[in-house]
Protein backbone atom coordinates (compact mmCIF):
# COMPACT_ATOMS: atom_id res chain seq x y z
CA UNK A 1 0.00 0.00 0.00
CA UNK A 2 2.71 2.44 0.92
CA UNK A 3 4.30 1.97 -2.44
CA UNK A 4 1.08 2.79 -4.21
CA UNK A 5 0.63 5.88 -2.14
CA UNK A 6 4.01 7.24 -3.02
CA UNK A 7 3.38 6.56 -6.69
CA UNK A 8 0.20 8.52 -6.47
CA UNK A 9 1.97 11.46 -4.92
CA UNK A 10 4.60 11.48 -7.64
CA UNK A 11 2.02 11.20 -10.37
CA UNK A 12 -0.33 13.77 -9.08
CA UNK A 13 0.69 16.44 -11.57
CA UNK A 14 0.07 14.10 -14.46
CA UNK A 15 -3.32 12.96 -13.16
CA UNK A 16 -4.26 10.11 -10.92
CA UNK A 17 -5.46 6.79 -12.24
CA UNK A 18 -8.65 5.42 -10.73
CA UNK A 19 -6.81 2.39 -9.52
CA UNK A 20 -4.22 4.41 -7.65
CA UNK A 21 -6.83 6.76 -6.32
CA UNK A 22 -8.74 3.83 -4.89
CA UNK A 23 -5.53 2.54 -3.44
CA UNK A 24 -5.02 5.78 -1.57
CA UNK A 25 -8.58 5.88 -0.32
CA UNK A 26 -8.33 2.28 0.80
CA UNK A 27 -5.21 2.91 2.75
CA UNK A 28 -6.93 5.77 4.56
CA UNK A 29 -10.01 3.74 5.34
CA UNK A 30 -7.94 0.90 6.66
CA UNK A 31 -6.03 3.12 8.99
CA UNK A 32 -2.79 3.22 7.05
CA UNK A 33 -2.57 6.98 7.04
CA UNK A 34 0.77 7.97 8.46
CA UNK A 35 0.41 8.95 12.08
CA UNK A 36 0.12 12.70 12.41
CA UNK A 37 2.35 14.64 14.75
CA UNK A 38 1.09 13.86 18.20
CA UNK A 39 0.19 16.98 20.14
CA UNK A 40 1.68 17.06 23.61
CA UNK A 41 -1.13 15.96 25.77
CA UNK A 42 -0.31 17.74 28.98
CA UNK A 43 0.33 21.43 29.28
CA UNK A 44 -1.73 22.11 26.14
CA UNK A 45 -4.41 24.00 27.92
CA UNK A 46 -4.47 25.07 31.51
CA UNK A 47 -4.71 21.47 32.57
CA UNK A 48 -2.79 21.46 35.83
CA UNK A 49 -5.81 20.51 37.95
CA UNK A 50 -7.13 17.88 35.61
CA UNK A 51 -6.86 14.23 36.56
CA UNK A 52 -3.99 12.36 34.96
CA UNK A 53 -4.42 9.02 33.22
CA UNK A 54 -1.98 6.49 31.89
CA UNK A 55 -3.31 4.65 28.86
CA UNK A 56 -1.33 2.23 26.74
CA UNK A 57 -2.45 2.88 23.18
CA UNK A 58 -1.17 0.58 20.46
CA UNK A 59 1.66 -0.50 22.72
CA UNK A 60 2.78 3.02 23.56
CA UNK A 61 2.27 4.43 27.05
CA UNK A 62 0.54 7.82 27.08
CA UNK A 63 0.28 9.96 30.18
CA UNK A 64 -2.21 12.73 29.77
CA UNK A 65 -4.46 15.05 31.67
CA UNK A 66 -8.10 14.76 30.75
CA UNK A 67 -11.35 16.44 31.62
CA UNK A 68 -13.78 13.96 33.19
CA UNK A 69 -16.31 14.53 30.43
CA UNK A 70 -13.92 13.68 27.59
CA UNK A 71 -14.72 10.41 25.88
CA UNK A 72 -11.99 8.05 24.80
CA UNK A 73 -13.07 8.73 21.21
CA UNK A 74 -12.41 12.45 21.66
CA UNK A 75 -9.05 11.93 23.29
CA UNK A 76 -7.90 9.49 20.59
CA UNK A 77 -8.83 11.79 17.74
CA UNK A 78 -8.53 15.31 19.05
CA UNK A 79 -5.78 14.97 21.65
CA UNK A 80 -3.64 12.22 20.17
CA UNK A 81 -4.30 12.64 16.45
CA UNK A 82 -5.32 9.01 16.03
CA UNK A 83 -8.04 9.81 13.54
CA UNK A 84 -8.49 6.25 12.26
CA UNK A 85 -11.21 5.81 14.88
CA UNK A 86 -14.33 7.46 13.47
CA UNK A 87 -17.16 9.33 15.18
CA UNK A 88 -20.59 8.40 13.84
CA UNK A 89 -23.70 8.44 15.98
CA UNK A 90 -21.79 9.02 19.23
CA UNK A 91 -24.47 7.12 21.13
CA UNK A 92 -23.52 3.50 20.81
CA UNK A 93 -25.54 2.60 17.77
CA UNK A 94 -23.27 2.54 14.72
CA UNK A 95 -19.92 1.03 15.69
CA UNK A 96 -17.66 3.36 13.70
CA UNK A 97 -15.80 4.26 16.92
CA UNK A 98 -15.04 0.63 17.88
CA UNK A 99 -11.67 0.00 19.58
CA UNK A 100 -10.30 -2.84 21.69
CA UNK A 101 -9.94 -2.22 25.42
CA UNK A 102 -7.95 -4.96 27.10
CA UNK A 103 -8.53 -7.00 23.93
CA UNK A 104 -12.32 -6.68 23.91
CA UNK A 105 -14.40 -4.58 21.47
CA UNK A 106 -15.91 -1.44 22.94
CA UNK A 107 -17.54 1.71 21.64
CA UNK A 108 -15.07 4.49 22.40
CA UNK A 109 -17.90 7.05 22.20
CA UNK A 110 -19.52 5.44 25.25
CA UNK A 111 -16.29 5.25 27.24
CA UNK A 112 -14.84 8.08 29.31
CA UNK A 113 -11.12 8.55 28.86
CA UNK A 114 -10.84 8.23 32.65
CA UNK A 115 -12.34 4.75 32.47
CA UNK A 116 -9.46 3.69 30.23
CA UNK A 117 -6.88 4.62 32.86
CA UNK A 118 -4.41 1.77 33.28
CA UNK A 119 -5.83 -0.17 30.34
CA UNK A 120 -4.58 -1.33 26.95
CA UNK A 121 -6.30 0.31 24.01
CA UNK A 122 -5.88 -0.86 20.41
CA UNK A 123 -7.08 1.29 17.52
CA UNK A 124 -7.05 0.55 13.80
CA UNK A 125 -3.62 2.21 13.55
CA UNK A 126 -2.35 -0.39 16.00
CA UNK A 127 -3.14 -3.23 13.60
CA UNK A 128 -0.42 -2.08 11.18
CA UNK A 129 2.63 -4.29 11.05
CA UNK A 130 5.25 -1.61 10.58
CA UNK A 131 4.48 -0.03 7.22
CA UNK A 132 2.37 -3.00 6.13
CA UNK A 133 -1.33 -3.57 6.63
CA UNK A 134 -2.10 -6.25 9.20
CA UNK A 135 -3.99 -9.40 8.16
CA UNK A 136 -7.48 -8.12 8.95
CA UNK A 137 -6.88 -4.85 7.12
CA UNK A 138 -5.40 -6.75 4.16
CA UNK A 139 -8.44 -9.04 4.04
CA UNK A 140 -10.80 -6.05 3.78
CA UNK A 141 -8.72 -4.70 0.92
CA UNK A 142 -8.58 -8.04 -0.92
CA UNK A 143 -12.30 -8.74 -0.55
CA UNK A 144 -13.48 -5.17 -1.25
CA UNK A 145 -14.94 -5.06 2.24
CA UNK A 146 -15.97 -1.42 1.92
CA UNK A 147 -17.37 1.21 -0.39
CA UNK A 148 -17.02 4.73 1.04
CA UNK A 149 -14.83 3.35 3.82
CA UNK A 150 -16.21 5.40 6.69
CA UNK A 151 -17.41 2.44 8.73
CA UNK A 152 -14.32 0.40 7.87
CA UNK A 153 -12.00 1.11 10.82
CA UNK A 154 -14.83 0.10 13.15
CA UNK A 155 -15.58 -3.01 11.09
CA UNK A 156 -11.90 -3.95 11.08
CA UNK A 157 -11.70 -3.60 14.87
CA UNK A 158 -14.84 -5.70 15.38
CA UNK A 159 -13.37 -8.35 13.10
CA UNK A 160 -10.09 -8.27 15.03
CA UNK A 161 -11.95 -8.57 18.36
CA UNK A 162 -14.06 -11.44 17.03
CA UNK A 163 -11.09 -13.35 15.61
CA UNK A 164 -9.16 -13.01 18.87
CA UNK A 165 -12.04 -14.81 20.62
CA UNK A 166 -12.92 -17.18 17.79
CA UNK A 167 -10.12 -17.73 15.30
CA UNK A 168 -12.38 -19.86 13.05
CA UNK A 169 -15.83 -18.31 13.23
CA UNK A 170 -18.84 -19.81 11.48
CA UNK A 171 -20.99 -17.57 9.26
CA UNK A 172 -23.46 -17.20 12.13
CA UNK A 173 -20.71 -16.24 14.51
CA UNK A 174 -19.41 -13.69 12.00
CA UNK A 175 -22.86 -12.15 11.60
CA UNK A 176 -23.34 -11.93 15.36
CA UNK A 177 -19.79 -10.73 15.95
CA UNK A 178 -20.12 -7.94 13.39
CA UNK A 179 -23.69 -6.98 14.36
CA UNK A 180 -22.64 -3.92 16.34
CA UNK A 181 -21.34 -2.16 13.23
CA UNK A 182 -23.58 -0.51 10.69
CA UNK A 183 -22.55 0.16 7.10
CA UNK A 184 -24.57 2.82 5.33
CA UNK A 185 -23.20 1.67 1.99
CA UNK A 186 -24.60 -1.79 2.70
CA UNK A 187 -21.33 -3.60 1.99
CA UNK A 188 -22.26 -6.36 4.43
CA UNK A 189 -21.79 -9.25 2.06
CA UNK A 190 -18.23 -8.20 1.32
CA UNK A 191 -17.61 -7.39 4.97
CA UNK A 192 -18.55 -10.93 5.99
CA UNK A 193 -16.32 -12.33 3.22
CA UNK A 194 -13.50 -10.11 4.44
CA UNK A 195 -13.82 -11.53 7.95
CA UNK A 196 -13.61 -15.07 6.59
CA UNK A 197 -10.56 -14.12 4.56
CA UNK A 198 -9.05 -12.43 7.63
CA UNK A 199 -9.43 -15.66 9.58
CA UNK A 200 -7.30 -17.40 6.92
CA UNK A 201 -4.71 -14.63 6.76
CA UNK A 202 -4.28 -14.59 10.52
CA UNK A 203 -3.25 -18.23 10.64
Amino acid at each position, binding site marked *: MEKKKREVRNESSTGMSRRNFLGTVSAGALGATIARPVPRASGQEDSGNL*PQVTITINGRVHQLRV*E*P*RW*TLLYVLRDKLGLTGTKPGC*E*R*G*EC*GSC*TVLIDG*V*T*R*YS*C*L*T*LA*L*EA*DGRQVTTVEGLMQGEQLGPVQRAFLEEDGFQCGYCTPGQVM*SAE*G*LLRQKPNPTIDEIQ*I*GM*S*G*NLCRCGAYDHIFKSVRRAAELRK
Partner: protein
Amino acid sequence: MRPFEYYSPRTLSEACNLLAEGEPDSKILAGGTDVLVEMRKSSAWSSKAIVDITRIPSLRGIGESGDWIIIKPLTTHTEVLHSDLVRTHAPLLQTAVSTIGSPQIRNRGTVGGNIMNAAACADTVPPLIALDAEIMLKSTSGERVIALSEFFVKPYVTVARRDEILVEVRFPKLPANARSSFVKLGRRNALSIARLSVAAVVCKDEAGVVTDARIVPGAAFPRWQRVPEAEKLLIGQKPSKELLVEGGKKVSEVMISFTGRRWSTEYKEPVIAVLVRRALEACE
Protein backbone atom coordinates in the same frame (compact mmCIF):
# COMPACT_ATOMS: atom_id res chain seq x y z
CA MET B 1 -21.35 17.48 27.60
CA ARG B 2 -21.55 19.45 30.82
CA PRO B 3 -18.60 19.27 33.19
CA PHE B 4 -18.76 17.05 36.26
CA GLU B 5 -16.52 15.70 39.00
CA TYR B 6 -15.30 12.12 38.68
CA TYR B 7 -14.62 9.67 41.51
CA SER B 8 -13.30 6.17 41.18
CA PRO B 9 -13.59 4.43 44.56
CA ARG B 10 -11.66 1.18 45.04
CA THR B 11 -13.84 -0.31 47.79
CA LEU B 12 -17.54 -0.60 48.42
CA SER B 13 -17.41 1.35 51.68
CA GLU B 14 -15.54 4.17 49.97
CA ALA B 15 -18.27 4.26 47.31
CA CYS B 16 -21.03 4.27 49.95
CA ASN B 17 -19.34 7.15 51.76
CA LEU B 18 -19.02 9.16 48.57
CA LEU B 19 -22.71 8.71 47.84
CA ALA B 20 -23.74 9.52 51.41
CA GLU B 21 -21.47 12.46 52.12
CA GLY B 22 -20.16 13.68 48.77
CA GLU B 23 -21.87 15.71 46.07
CA PRO B 24 -25.60 15.15 46.63
CA ASP B 25 -26.31 15.23 42.90
CA SER B 26 -24.09 12.34 41.85
CA LYS B 27 -24.64 9.43 39.51
CA ILE B 28 -23.26 5.90 39.68
CA LEU B 29 -21.41 4.77 36.55
CA ALA B 30 -21.08 1.06 35.69
CA GLY B 31 -20.84 0.10 32.00
CA GLY B 32 -22.00 3.57 31.02
CA THR B 33 -24.10 2.38 28.07
CA ASP B 34 -27.12 4.17 29.48
CA VAL B 35 -25.32 6.89 31.47
CA LEU B 36 -23.12 8.13 28.61
CA VAL B 37 -26.07 8.25 26.22
CA GLU B 38 -28.02 10.28 28.78
CA MET B 39 -25.07 12.56 29.44
CA ARG B 40 -24.98 13.56 25.78
CA LYS B 41 -28.52 14.83 25.90
CA SER B 42 -27.44 17.82 27.98
CA SER B 43 -31.04 18.83 28.59
CA ALA B 44 -31.77 15.64 30.51
CA TRP B 45 -28.44 15.60 32.34
CA SER B 46 -27.92 17.50 35.56
CA SER B 47 -25.63 15.33 37.69
CA LYS B 48 -22.61 17.13 39.07
CA ALA B 49 -20.52 14.08 39.88
CA ILE B 50 -19.91 10.59 38.58
CA VAL B 51 -19.07 7.74 40.93
CA ASP B 52 -17.42 5.11 38.74
CA ILE B 53 -17.84 1.79 40.57
CA THR B 54 -16.10 -0.36 37.95
CA ARG B 55 -12.86 -0.58 39.93
CA ILE B 56 -14.47 -2.31 42.90
CA PRO B 57 -13.51 -5.97 42.39
CA SER B 58 -16.00 -7.36 44.93
CA LEU B 59 -18.89 -6.24 42.68
CA ARG B 60 -17.91 -8.55 39.83
CA GLY B 61 -18.59 -12.21 39.06
CA ILE B 62 -21.09 -15.06 39.04
CA GLY B 63 -21.18 -17.74 41.74
CA GLU B 64 -23.38 -20.24 43.53
CA SER B 65 -24.27 -20.80 47.15
CA GLY B 66 -26.29 -23.92 47.90
CA ASP B 67 -29.42 -23.73 45.76
CA TRP B 68 -28.83 -20.11 44.77
CA ILE B 69 -27.08 -18.40 41.89
CA ILE B 70 -25.48 -15.08 42.75
CA ILE B 71 -24.70 -12.48 40.11
CA LYS B 72 -22.72 -9.42 41.15
CA PRO B 73 -23.88 -6.17 39.55
CA LEU B 74 -20.80 -5.39 37.43
CA THR B 75 -21.07 -8.71 35.61
CA THR B 76 -21.34 -7.85 31.91
CA HIS B 77 -23.90 -9.35 29.58
CA THR B 78 -21.05 -11.10 27.74
CA GLU B 79 -19.96 -12.74 31.01
CA VAL B 80 -23.53 -13.97 31.61
CA LEU B 81 -23.59 -15.28 28.06
CA HIS B 82 -20.48 -17.39 28.70
CA SER B 83 -21.37 -18.59 32.19
CA ASP B 84 -21.82 -22.35 32.65
CA LEU B 85 -23.74 -21.77 35.88
CA VAL B 86 -26.30 -19.62 34.10
CA ARG B 87 -26.52 -22.04 31.17
CA THR B 88 -27.28 -24.91 33.56
CA HIS B 89 -29.53 -23.21 36.10
CA ALA B 90 -31.16 -20.27 34.31
CA PRO B 91 -30.96 -20.74 30.53
CA LEU B 92 -33.68 -18.17 29.84
CA LEU B 93 -31.44 -15.44 31.28
CA GLN B 94 -28.72 -16.46 28.86
CA THR B 95 -31.13 -16.25 25.93
CA ALA B 96 -32.21 -12.81 27.10
CA VAL B 97 -28.71 -11.31 27.36
CA SER B 98 -27.80 -12.75 23.95
CA THR B 99 -30.38 -10.36 22.46
CA ILE B 100 -29.08 -7.22 24.16
CA GLY B 101 -27.68 -4.50 21.88
CA SER B 102 -24.55 -5.70 20.11
CA PRO B 103 -21.27 -7.35 21.07
CA GLN B 104 -19.82 -3.97 22.03
CA ILE B 105 -22.83 -3.16 24.24
CA ARG B 106 -22.76 -6.64 25.83
CA ASN B 107 -19.02 -6.36 26.49
CA ARG B 108 -19.66 -3.26 28.52
CA GLY B 109 -23.27 -3.13 29.73
CA THR B 110 -23.82 -4.75 33.12
CA VAL B 111 -26.67 -6.66 34.74
CA GLY B 112 -26.73 -4.13 37.60
CA GLY B 113 -27.00 -1.20 35.19
CA ASN B 114 -29.78 -2.92 33.27
CA ILE B 115 -31.82 -3.38 36.46
CA MET B 116 -31.10 0.02 38.02
CA ASN B 117 -31.79 1.93 34.82
CA ALA B 118 -35.27 0.37 34.95
CA ALA B 119 -36.19 1.03 31.31
CA ALA B 120 -39.42 -0.74 30.34
CA CYS B 121 -37.41 -2.64 27.73
CA ALA B 122 -34.65 -3.91 30.08
CA ASP B 123 -34.14 -7.46 28.84
CA THR B 124 -32.71 -9.06 31.98
CA VAL B 125 -35.71 -8.09 34.12
CA PRO B 126 -38.50 -10.40 32.83
CA PRO B 127 -36.28 -13.51 33.16
CA LEU B 128 -35.03 -12.44 36.58
CA ILE B 129 -38.58 -11.93 37.83
CA ALA B 130 -39.54 -15.32 36.39
CA LEU B 131 -36.60 -16.71 38.36
CA ASP B 132 -37.97 -15.12 41.57
CA ALA B 133 -34.82 -13.02 41.90
CA GLU B 134 -34.09 -10.75 44.83
CA ILE B 135 -31.60 -7.94 44.99
CA MET B 136 -29.47 -6.50 47.75
CA LEU B 137 -28.95 -2.75 48.09
CA LYS B 138 -26.24 -1.24 50.27
CA SER B 139 -25.59 2.21 51.68
CA THR B 140 -23.87 3.67 54.75
CA SER B 141 -27.10 2.99 56.67
CA GLY B 142 -26.95 -0.75 55.96
CA GLU B 143 -28.17 -3.42 53.61
CA ARG B 144 -31.63 -4.44 52.51
CA VAL B 145 -32.98 -7.24 50.34
CA ILE B 146 -35.97 -6.71 48.05
CA ALA B 147 -37.82 -9.09 45.74
CA LEU B 148 -37.16 -7.83 42.21
CA SER B 149 -40.90 -7.95 41.52
CA GLU B 150 -41.38 -5.33 44.28
CA PHE B 151 -38.50 -3.12 43.18
CA PHE B 152 -39.94 -1.20 40.23
CA VAL B 153 -42.49 1.58 40.54
CA LYS B 154 -42.84 2.50 36.87
CA PRO B 155 -40.44 2.85 33.93
CA TYR B 156 -37.19 4.51 35.09
CA VAL B 157 -38.42 4.69 38.71
CA THR B 158 -37.53 2.20 41.45
CA VAL B 159 -37.76 2.14 45.24
CA ALA B 160 -33.95 2.54 45.54
CA ARG B 161 -32.62 5.67 47.20
CA ARG B 162 -29.96 7.60 45.34
CA ASP B 163 -27.29 6.70 47.89
CA GLU B 164 -27.93 2.96 47.54
CA ILE B 165 -25.71 0.66 45.49
CA LEU B 166 -27.02 -2.58 44.04
CA VAL B 167 -24.49 -5.12 45.32
CA GLU B 168 -26.04 -8.49 44.51
CA VAL B 169 -28.69 -10.19 42.38
CA ARG B 170 -29.63 -13.73 43.41
CA PHE B 171 -32.20 -16.35 42.54
CA PRO B 172 -32.90 -20.01 43.30
CA LYS B 173 -31.61 -22.47 40.69
CA LEU B 174 -34.39 -23.74 38.46
CA PRO B 175 -35.47 -27.27 39.46
CA ALA B 176 -34.30 -30.12 37.23
CA ASN B 177 -37.78 -30.58 35.72
CA ALA B 178 -38.08 -26.92 34.66
CA ARG B 179 -38.01 -25.71 31.08
CA SER B 180 -37.59 -22.01 30.45
CA SER B 181 -37.60 -19.58 27.55
CA PHE B 182 -37.32 -15.95 26.53
CA VAL B 183 -38.73 -14.58 23.29
CA LYS B 184 -38.38 -11.03 22.09
CA LEU B 185 -39.72 -9.02 19.25
CA GLY B 186 -37.37 -6.25 18.18
CA ARG B 187 -37.24 -4.11 15.12
CA ARG B 188 -34.10 -5.71 13.79
CA ASN B 189 -31.94 -8.44 15.13
CA ALA B 190 -28.95 -6.59 16.50
CA LEU B 191 -29.16 -3.32 18.37
CA SER B 192 -32.86 -3.80 18.88
CA ILE B 193 -34.41 -2.45 22.01
CA ALA B 194 -37.26 -4.83 22.83
CA ARG B 195 -40.68 -3.65 21.95
CA LEU B 196 -42.28 -6.71 23.52
CA SER B 197 -40.83 -9.80 25.12
CA VAL B 198 -41.91 -12.74 27.28
CA ALA B 199 -40.04 -14.85 29.82
CA ALA B 200 -41.55 -18.19 30.80
CA VAL B 201 -40.76 -21.07 33.14
CA VAL B 202 -42.79 -24.31 33.14
CA CYS B 203 -42.26 -27.33 35.45
CA LYS B 204 -43.98 -30.66 34.85
CA ASP B 205 -44.19 -33.94 36.74
CA GLU B 206 -43.38 -37.33 35.16
CA ALA B 207 -46.89 -37.60 33.75
CA GLY B 208 -46.43 -34.31 31.88
CA VAL B 209 -48.78 -32.37 34.14
CA VAL B 210 -47.78 -28.75 34.80
CA THR B 211 -46.83 -28.22 38.44
CA ASP B 212 -45.50 -24.66 38.20
CA ALA B 213 -45.81 -21.95 35.56
CA ARG B 214 -44.37 -18.45 35.52
CA ILE B 215 -45.07 -15.94 32.78
CA VAL B 216 -43.52 -12.46 32.76
CA PRO B 217 -44.10 -10.16 29.79
CA GLY B 218 -41.61 -7.36 29.14
CA ALA B 219 -42.52 -3.85 27.95
CA ALA B 220 -46.22 -4.76 28.01
CA PHE B 221 -47.48 -3.88 31.49
CA PRO B 222 -47.06 -0.60 33.39
CA ARG B 223 -44.58 -2.49 35.60
CA TRP B 224 -43.12 -5.96 35.37
CA GLN B 225 -45.08 -8.72 36.97
CA ARG B 226 -46.06 -12.33 36.64
CA VAL B 227 -49.52 -13.05 35.25
CA PRO B 228 -51.13 -15.47 37.74
CA GLU B 229 -54.43 -15.48 35.78
CA ALA B 230 -52.65 -17.13 32.83
CA GLU B 231 -50.33 -19.27 34.96
CA LYS B 232 -53.38 -20.80 36.71
CA LEU B 233 -54.80 -21.94 33.38
CA LEU B 234 -51.77 -24.17 32.89
CA ILE B 235 -51.24 -25.61 36.36
CA GLY B 236 -52.67 -29.11 36.79
CA GLN B 237 -53.07 -29.55 33.01
CA LYS B 238 -51.23 -31.44 30.31
CA PRO B 239 -50.63 -28.59 27.85
CA SER B 240 -52.28 -28.91 24.45
CA LYS B 241 -51.73 -26.50 21.57
CA GLU B 242 -55.13 -24.95 22.36
CA LEU B 243 -54.24 -24.46 26.00
CA LEU B 244 -51.08 -22.54 25.10
CA VAL B 245 -53.09 -20.33 22.74
CA GLU B 246 -55.55 -19.81 25.58
CA GLY B 247 -52.69 -18.80 27.89
CA GLY B 248 -51.52 -16.20 25.39
CA LYS B 249 -54.98 -14.71 25.06
CA LYS B 250 -55.30 -14.50 28.81
CA VAL B 251 -52.11 -12.45 29.09
CA SER B 252 -53.46 -10.06 26.41
CA GLU B 253 -56.68 -9.65 28.36
CA VAL B 254 -54.86 -8.92 31.58
CA MET B 255 -52.60 -6.44 29.80
CA ILE B 256 -55.60 -4.51 28.49
CA SER B 257 -57.23 -4.54 31.92
CA PHE B 258 -54.14 -2.65 33.14
CA THR B 259 -53.40 -0.30 30.29
CA GLY B 260 -56.87 0.23 28.83
CA ARG B 261 -57.20 0.50 25.08
CA ARG B 262 -54.81 2.97 23.52
CA TRP B 263 -53.24 3.58 20.13
CA SER B 264 -50.80 0.69 20.48
CA THR B 265 -53.34 -1.86 21.72
CA GLU B 266 -54.44 -2.97 18.29
CA TYR B 267 -50.86 -4.10 17.68
CA LYS B 268 -49.94 -5.32 21.14
CA GLU B 269 -53.06 -7.38 21.80
CA PRO B 270 -52.47 -10.11 19.19
CA VAL B 271 -48.68 -9.83 19.32
CA ILE B 272 -48.31 -10.42 23.05
CA ALA B 273 -50.72 -13.38 22.78
CA VAL B 274 -48.55 -14.95 20.09
CA LEU B 275 -45.31 -14.24 21.97
CA VAL B 276 -46.68 -15.91 25.11
CA ARG B 277 -47.74 -18.92 23.09
CA ARG B 278 -44.30 -19.15 21.50
CA ALA B 279 -42.58 -18.80 24.86
CA LEU B 280 -44.76 -21.59 26.29
CA GLU B 281 -44.18 -23.80 23.24
CA ALA B 282 -40.46 -23.33 23.72
CA CYS B 283 -40.90 -24.79 27.23
CA GLU B 284 -42.52 -27.98 25.87
